[in-house]
């Protein structure tokens, strides 16, 4: 069975090579039957990789310890759910997963999204085939998941205990699927450039792909943050470590892209910029995989130790050179069809939003790569830790939030000072009043106050958009308000889904401000019967309780939580010991409420039975998950098919279909 899996990879490699050669030749010699053969090869490749993945899953669930990957990432006691998730727990498996998502997306895209692209078709197929070929080469020559051990292992070494958590089961595949799916709009962009067909057809054909990739990456990042918070147990959700940063980079450029394509769709401007953004997004997605998988940042030696690093690096350089080279050669064809009518317009606020997003991505990239660069230049090792990112990202975050609020208030094309003033007066006044209240309530740190004010501004502006639209609709159609609101969203999913995402972002930032500026941490060694005080909460320690469980031994600390003296429940943080791992896993106890989380970590214990506890009060953390959920919901609304519109004689004025992805 594992051998079959490898042969399927080999077949996949040949199919990808065939697809590349056939589509290129077909495009060059204008032989549509060759291009069609390339398309079919991509579909066959998806089938081959699906079967190969099935072979890996089958090796995992039958616990075939003759396969190195299975022996390294599972053991015979691992629950079935986690055994299947080991598919993407290690290097070889996660690369196979990447390739699988890419191949399936490629097959679907060439089957369903190429209509109307005409001359671009062969080059889209060729680009997709090229990317698929790279991953097939990796799997066959450098990271074969089906490699056999010389001697079948008697027992596997088990899944890393930190990965035994539902959040960690879904976080990696979502991020990987997001990365892989960005290859679709990238390939369509390259195909359009190669064929000189440079209208918006490639953008429209891949809109849902880009949004799906963005959805998947957003969900993956959020789940990763939640996993860090609930499982890693250090009290935070984002540590600015290189792998986290790597997932943020393509997210930022993709967000910029989703906004700036609206200008091209409406006005035929920014063609070059949109191509730059989608190329960057794809390169950064591959770069993210490269960072995660090559280990280049933890040590330069692990990079040269495996052949994966150089292969990824070569692929990145080659694709970047080809893409930007092609863009340079087509630059004269990419002139804007329109001019800007005024500096003060919604178009320019989109451009500044793009500027901030890309500059933030650049700052994060600089910080991530700097330890490597500075070691190379000065020979001294230094760290770029969270304090750096928090300082540098704060002004960009503030600017971004402010623009999110300002943007819907500025008219398209040209805003006059008068309507500018009319639109801004009430939202600004309300924001000022709200900010005053926050200040009176004790939010004194200027940066925290500024960020919260910006969040409030976004929420007010967004609320106002919904209220105005629904009221006008209900007045015109005589519909009750809830119906009017529902139909308003259903008729303009792009616009109003976008606003839902904006509101979600603002809520998420509220949670970030609360939990990062106003966290309370108390450490203490507590004897049984003793207690620890954190703000208005008291944690009473009753004693340690060892327990023998299915696949691990655990020590629980039994705690009673009191708020202002009143009993609020029992908390049981623990440490778990797995026979397959040297490091104990920490499991934190969290009591969540919309106002704040009480978060208790059992750090260890003394001989006399006293517990070393850390009690944290994290304000507003729930808002991060709620805001993130709203962002995902909004994305689903945006992806939702727009209502079919009957052809109408009256041109819908361009203001009607504005905003949002």
């Amino acid at each position: 069975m594992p051998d079959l899996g490898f042969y399927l990879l080999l077949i996949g490699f040949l199919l990808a090579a065939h697809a590349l050669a056939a589509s290129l030749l077909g495009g060059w010699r204008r032989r549509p039957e060759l291009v069609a053969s390339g398309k079919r090869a991509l579909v066959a490749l998806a089938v081959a990789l699906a079967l190969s993945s099935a072979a890996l899953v089958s090796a995992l669930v039958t616990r075939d310890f003759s396969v190195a990957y299975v022996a390294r990432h599972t053991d015979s006691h691992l629950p079935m759910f986690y055994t299947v998730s080991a598919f993407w727990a290690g290097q070889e498996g996660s690369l196979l997963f990447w390739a699988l998502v890419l191949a399936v997306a490629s097959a679907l895209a060439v089957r369903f999204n190429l209509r109307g692209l005409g001359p671009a078709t062969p080059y889209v197929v060729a680009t997709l085939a090229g990317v698929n070929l790279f991953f097939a080469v990796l799997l066959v020559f450098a990271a074969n998941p089906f490699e056999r051990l010389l001697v079948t292992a008697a027992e596997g070494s088990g899944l890393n205990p930190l990965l035994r958590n539902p959040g960690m089961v879904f976080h990696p595949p979502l991020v990987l699927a997001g990365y892989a799916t960005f290859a679709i709009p990238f390939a369509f962009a390259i195909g359009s450039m190669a064929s000189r067909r440079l209208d918006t057809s490639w953008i429209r054909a891949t809109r849902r792909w880009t949004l799906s990739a963005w959805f998947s990456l957003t969900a993956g990042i959020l789940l990763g943050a939640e996993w860090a918070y609930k499982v890693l147990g250090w009290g935070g959700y984002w540590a600015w470590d290189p792998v986290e940063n790597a997932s943020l980079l393509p997210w930022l450029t993709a967000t910029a892209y989703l906004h700036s394509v609206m200008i091209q769709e409406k006005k035929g401007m920014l063609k070059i910029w949109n191509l730059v953004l989608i190329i960057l997004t794809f390169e950064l997605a591959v770069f993210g995989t490269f960072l995660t998988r090559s280990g280049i940042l933890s040590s330069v030696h692990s990079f040269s130790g495996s052949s994966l690093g150089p292969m990824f690096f070569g692929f990145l350089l080659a694709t970047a050179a080809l893409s930007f080279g092609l863009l340079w050669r087509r630059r004269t064809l990419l002139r804007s069809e329109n001019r800007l009518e005024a500096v003060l317009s919604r178009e320019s606020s989109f451009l500044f939003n793009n500027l901030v997003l890309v500059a933030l991505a650049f700052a994060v990239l600089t910080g991530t790569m700097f330890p490597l660069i500075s070691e190379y230049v000065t020979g001294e090792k230094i760290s770029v830790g969270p304090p750096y990112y928090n300082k540098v990202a704060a002004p960009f975050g503030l600017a971004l939030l402010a623009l999110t609020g300002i943007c819907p208030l500025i008219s398209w094309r040209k805003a006059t000072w008068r309507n500018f003033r009319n639109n801004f007066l009430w939202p600004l006044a309300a924001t000022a009043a709200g900010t005053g209240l926050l200040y009176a309530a004790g939010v004194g740190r200027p940066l925290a106050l500024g960020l919260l004010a910006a969040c409030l501004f976004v929420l007010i502006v967004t609320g106002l958009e919904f209220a105005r639209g629904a009221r006008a609709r209900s007045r015109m159609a005589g519909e009750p308000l809830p119906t009017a609101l529902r139909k308003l969203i259903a008729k303009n999913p792009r616009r109003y889904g976008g606003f839902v995402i904006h509101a979600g972002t603002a809520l998420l930032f509220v949670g970030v401000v609360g939990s990062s500026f106003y966290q309370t941490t108390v450490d203490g060694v507590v004897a049984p019967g003793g207690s620890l005080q954190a703000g208005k909460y008291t944690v009473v320690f009753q004693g340690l309780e060892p327990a023998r469980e299915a696949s691990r031994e655990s020590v629980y600390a039994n705690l009673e939580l009191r708020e202002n003296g009143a009993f609020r429940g029992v908390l049981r943080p623990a440490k778990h010991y797995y026979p397959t791992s040297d490091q104990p896993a920490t499991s934190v106890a969290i009591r969540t409420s919309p106002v704040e989380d009480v978060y208790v970590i059992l750090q260890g214990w003394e001989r006399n039975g006293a517990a070393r506890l850390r009690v944290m009060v994290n304000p507003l953390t729930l808002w991060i998950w709620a805001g993130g959920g709203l962002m995902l919901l909004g994305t689903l609304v945006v992806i939702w098919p727009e209502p079919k519109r009957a052809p109408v004689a009256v041109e819908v004025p361009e203001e009607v279909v504005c905003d949002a992805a």
Partner: protein
Amino acid sequence: MRRRMAVVLSCLLAALAVPAAASPATVEEVASNLICPCGCDNMLVSSCVCGTATQIRSEIDSKLAAGMTAEQIWDEFVRRYGREALATPPADGFHLTVWILPFLAALTAGWMLARILRRWAAAPAPGESSPEPGTGIEDGELLRRMQEELRQFQR
């Protein structure tokens, strides 16, 4: 517009450069500028859950109690582990790059964008007659749009 942007951004830069006020430091403050030497990826001593971090925190506690300032404690860790121990990259020599580059890039890009916008706005639109621009999203305009939408799509 350009000047205003420049002013705003340079204010932000200045705000960043101002060091934290020199009030008596807490363990948390000192520990949150130190990278835990335990080998966890870029974790701070203030938040790392390993035993090493716990030890270092109690060490910081006793040093603070002995009257050492935050700077003196950081210096001592730098002597022990090298400048890699500090979570904030140093702001001297070549390392200034990491602090300046992101803002320099953003400022330059902002300045270029402002120039481009002004040039675009000055150029006449190629053969486009603009029907009274600037009718923003006032209620009347919105109403008209709504009416139109409703007429077209109401079932």
